């Protein structure tokens, strides 16, 4: 798949997502039934990823987040209680296009978005509450766990935007 031909645009009322399937019922239910409502209520913004023929290859939803210092350590070395973050709330690839680099494409796009927003508002981390089967994917992409991942149902991982220069 030519990733440079993928187009990303915000979800809107005319998008038909009834046939979207990524093999995860929770994510399918979210994009089919909840994503637009979340967006209209300013809770999460969802972006669809389309192929040139307009078919939907995937999507991601983003929102704001914060990570409590105590999730990292019980000491006072970091001088704020909550570390501001940009959260990847959902990220999924249509089952037809899995294994072709689309997930990586979507992740990199969110990282750029987060870094861009960090020039306008306090935003130190990119966070994700990962599906267990996706933890390895995020670890491979420089994310670090915030806690003992084996004890979390959806382990929270983060990428520090200070490790990236504009």
């Amino acid at each position, binding site marked *: 798949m030519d990733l440079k031909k993928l187009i*990303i645009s915000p979800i809107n009322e005319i998008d038909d997502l009834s046939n979207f399937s990524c093999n995860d019922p929770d994510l399918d239910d979210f994009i089919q039934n909840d994503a637009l409502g979340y967006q209209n209520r300013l809770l999460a913004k969802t972006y669809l990823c389309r192929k040139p023929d307009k078919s939907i290859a995937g999507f991601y939803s983003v929102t704001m987040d914060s990570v409590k210092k105590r999730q990292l*350590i019980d000491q006072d070395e970091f001088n704020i209680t909550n570390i501001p973050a940009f959260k990847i709330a959902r990220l999924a690839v249509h089952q037809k296009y899995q294994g072709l680099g689309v997930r990586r494409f979507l992740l990199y*796009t969110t990282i750029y978005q987060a870094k861009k927003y960090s020039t306008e508002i306090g935003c130190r981390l990119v966070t994700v509450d990962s599906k267990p089967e996706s933890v*390895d994917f995020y670890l491979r992409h420089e994310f670090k766990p915030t806690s003992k991942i084996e004890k979390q149902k959806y382990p929270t991982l983060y990428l520090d935007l200070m490790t990236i220069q504009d």
Partner: protein
Amino acid sequence: MAHPIEPTVLDKEDFKRLLKDLENPELSPKAQRMYKLGKQYHRQVHRA
């Protein structure tokens, strides 16, 4: 296809190290590459 999870055990020293990383982060060449590719990809975002 689901990948088996390799449990990562983090002890207190690991947390200290993670926090030190936050205070004195080192630039990450891989994160830098991801950012640069994301910057290219982001040109493909169509605003509604």
